[in-house]
């Protein structure tokens, strides 16, 4: 099962969401779906219409930038990182 590292700021929007989660999934889309099954609402915070990952959310699988179709292996680490922006 893949390890997913989630932004702490997302837990402020979804109370109870852990910083690190372990879920099954063979793609980024599957992983997000698995997260959403345990913590309803995660998908809508990370994904936009398209469907696509939200513009200012970066997802990396094993250190490489990823999109929803990117393959996730059982020993993968998936990082979800908000883009550096704002004010």
């Amino acid at each position: 099962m893949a390890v997913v590292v989630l932004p702490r700021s997302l837990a402020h929007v979804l109370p109870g969401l852990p910083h690190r989660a372990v879920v099954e999934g063979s793609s980024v889309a599957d992983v997000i779906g698995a997260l959403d099954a345990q913590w309803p609402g995660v998908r809508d915070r990370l994904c936009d219409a398209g469907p696509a990952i939200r513009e200012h959310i970066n997802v990396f699988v094993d250190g490489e930038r990823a999109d929803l179709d990117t393959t996730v292996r059982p020993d993968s680490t998936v990082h979800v990182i908000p883009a550096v922006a704002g004010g």
Partner: protein
Amino acid sequence: MAERILLLVGTKKGGFILGSDGDRRSWSITGPMCGGLAIHDMSQDPATGTLYAGGGSPWYGPTVFRSDDLGATWSQSSEGLTYGDEGPKITAVWNVTAAHGAVYAGVGPAGLFRSDDGGATWRHVEGLTNHPTRPTWQPGAGGLILHTIVPHPTDAARMWIAISAVGTFETRDGGDSWEPRNAGVRAGFLPDPYPETGQCVHKLVMAAGEPEHLYQQNHCGVYRSHDGGVQWEEITAGLPNEFGFAMVSHPRDGQTAWVIPLNGAENGRYMPDGAAAVWRTHDGGDAWIRGAEGLPQENAYLGVLREAMARDELEPVGVYFGTSTGQLYGSADGGRSWDAIATTLPPIYSVEAIRVPG
């Protein structure tokens, strides 16, 4: 029974709730709430007491928060708040209003959504988006935003909405069809100053107890209507500027309303002459009275956004406004004199006043 006044304040950095007793002199501050997301509107369902907060963030998108314990805890959902995979992306929620058992959300790009389960799921009110004039809708400087929702107090099938740089629309069949309600409203920035749509309405309010009696603060003046918006009459005379954003109406007196005139659209959009003031009418807009006691009168280059003024239901009525630089002011005497309630909040987008048991 003792009562408290709560001010629901939406800001760039989250929601805040300020509380006071009936004297409205000493205020507590709680926040930021809602994950620190920009909150454009906070409101209460008068039937259930549930609080709602609508907003969004560049990272996590648009959403509507809900609290069943007066802000102690919040949940959020945007399930169904979408134009679909082929449609434009929704950037933020700009208004959330509960009425007749439903909750409505106004979003940008302009559209209306409805929830029948307290915000858990949403569906698109397609009748408005599919209006024949839609191809002509052009965004204003602030975007193409559905920012005002005014439900009829007793007829659940009737509602008015307002969209920046497009105008006011009314439905009489629960949202299936809509009619423009802009006759008599100037659009001075267009070749035809009185088009069917294209007016930049900033705020629409209803006179107490008179559903057909509406007031409007527009980019180009202040207006009143006595027929549900079918025809508008300009009532700007007596105000220092035609431009402004915020407006509220009295909870019991249909002839009383408050506005905050600002320097013109291309002239800074702050209080005229750097002197803060809230203007009120007690005769439906025939005459206006300046209220500034207690407000800064020099170097007060303050702006107040469309949703950032509110009134409570006490007697005398309390009036409140928040600035885009984070100051919150309140009046306990209907706008005659003012006190600073908070001066170091984040930029304020919205203010709402509710009454709760003490």
